[in-house]
């Protein structure tokens, strides 16, 4: 009787282990399906004209997403210009000068910002920049993305600097150099790889965002010639094509999505391979 009961417990354990494995497969399944469909629907549309041509007028087939791809890069550049200096230097303060109480407050506030829905960032920057400027612009879009990057980079920087052993700080100061030089030239270099990892992951995240750009960068069917004008972005273009009425637009949306996901996954995978999985936990 005991033996039978034991066999039943073991069988139950094995069954549940199997169930957990199945759940794991179910969880990864969408990723596989998405990649499969992106390649199937989008690959054939990825020709040179896709990367070099502007969108054709509504209803006409053909054309490309060159302006959207370039636009995304421009917006990313603006975001990095805002997000990285503020984020890294802010993280430096927390790690090298901060107090326990202040750091807790900043971390708490940064977590609130990180949890803010991206659409909220969109309407806030709209009110902050688009309204006074009386128009949509690349500046507004870059600012929205940059604002999103700041709390991510601050947390990642603080985390990576905290991993630098104190003995290096002491060793640097024992050479008779002022603290600011020791931080900028020695300590930041030691934490450098980790910080760059955090910045890259923040870039990958911000590059795929659509909602903050809806009312800031707004999108543009032509080249942007002036940063105070609306600018196209890849996620925006994918969205407007996907919900649009034309099949040709849908085809291009798949192609654009394939480009976007390849870039996002390449950065994520590349970063994780190089760091062997040791990424700042706050960028997950």
């Amino acid at each position, binding site marked *: 009787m005991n033996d039978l009961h034991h066999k039943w417990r073991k069988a139950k354990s094995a069954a549940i282990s199997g169930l957990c494995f199945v759940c794991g497969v179910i969880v990864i399944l969408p990723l596989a399906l998405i990649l499969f469909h992106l390649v199937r629907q989008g690959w054939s549309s990825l020709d040179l004209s896709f990367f070099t041509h502007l969108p054709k007028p509504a209803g006409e087939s053909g054309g490309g997403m060159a302006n959207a791809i370039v636009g995304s890069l421009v917006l990313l550049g603006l975001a990095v210009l805002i997000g990285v200096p503020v984020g890294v230097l*802010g993280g430096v303060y927390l790690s090298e000068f901060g107090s326990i109480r202040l750091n807790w407050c900043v971390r708490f506030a940064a977590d609130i910002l990180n949890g803010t829905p991206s659409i909220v960032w969109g309407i806030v920057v709209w009110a902050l920049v688009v309204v006074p400027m009386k128009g949509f612009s690349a500046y507004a879009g870059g600012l929205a993305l940059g604002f999103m990057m700041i709390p991510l980079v601050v947390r990642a920087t603080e985390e990576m600097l905290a991993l630098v052993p104190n003995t290096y700080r002491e060793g640097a100061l024992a050479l008779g150099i002022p603290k600011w030089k020791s931080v900028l030239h020695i300590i930041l270099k030691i934490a450098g790889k980790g910080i760059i990892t955090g910045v890259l992951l923040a870039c990958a995240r911000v590059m795929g965002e659509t909602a903050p750009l809806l009312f800031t960068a707004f999108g543009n069917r032509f080249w942007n010639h002036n940063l105070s004008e609306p600018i196209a972005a890849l996620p925006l273009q994918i969205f407007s094509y996907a919900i649009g009425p034309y099949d040709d637009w849908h085809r291009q949306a798949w192609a654009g999505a394939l480009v976007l996901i390849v870039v996002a996954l390449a950065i994520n995978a590349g970063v994780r391979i190089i760091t062997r999985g040791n990424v700042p936990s706050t960028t997950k």
Partner: protein
Amino acid sequence: MNASASSQAHAPGKIALSPPSRAGDAAFKFLTWCMAMMIFVLVAVVGWELFAGAAPALKAFGWRFLVRSDWNPVSSDFGALPFIFGTFVSSLLGLAIALPLSLATAVYLTELAPGWVRQPAISLVEMLAAVPSVILGLWGIFVMVPWLRDHLFKSLQKHLGFLPLFQGHIYGVCVLSAAIIIAIMIVPIITSISREVFRAVPETQREAAFALGATRWEVTRLAVLSSSRRGIFGAAMLGLGRALGETMAVTMVIGNRPEISASLFAPGYTLASAIANEFSEATGDIYLSALFELGLALLLVTIIINILAHVLIGAVGREKHG
């Protein structure tokens, strides 16, 4: 300090080092302090702009805004109830779908997976988190929703159609589709946090259970899951917080109709989707202000959920990282 006088007793031909100045340290500390304070400035900016934008609507409708169901831009009649309903139903349902899957996956990754499977599997789950919302939405509209409409939803209505949940015309785009898409999006974060919670359980707990002759599952249930309740709840809250803010993928599969219905197959509308769809076309100050009020409501709910999540997980995190 006079460096030259006493150095004469030692190495001759001493090279000149740059004269020190304490101003450098003070300036650097101030600069980095300003950058760190930007975080607080950003919080203030977000709060201020939302309140300022929502002020006219707040004045016009007051708290009734949250419980009225009309959404009529023409007559300037705005009530947020359909959106609040849609947001919560889709998010909570999404959480209900995601939570068991995430926990099972986390159990598998922490307790059961063989060593060589672990890291690649973890990376795969984290890759899912890297998929942009709009791409998930694209796949949702053209692949997932048609399949659900023609297969899963049909059979659900056939077999469970006596429940009001599964009645009504099946469009494909609906609250249930939004819930499924949300589930796909929040599984990675819940799995990731749950994994950390499980890893925080000391190995000695598991060993003690094994020593009592427990099977693998019993060890997991007794030693790991029962002591991780708080952390699991926190992970779920974090997932919920993420779910509430999801915009693009949800907008593309939820149907965008401001209705409250008992059926899961009915199209719905969330706070985020409403803002995304209607902001550009909002005419009139009250219309715009109403949308800002939606944003404010969304932000407040998200903040509360996230704080709750951090309080629950914070204890776990602090113990682990010391």
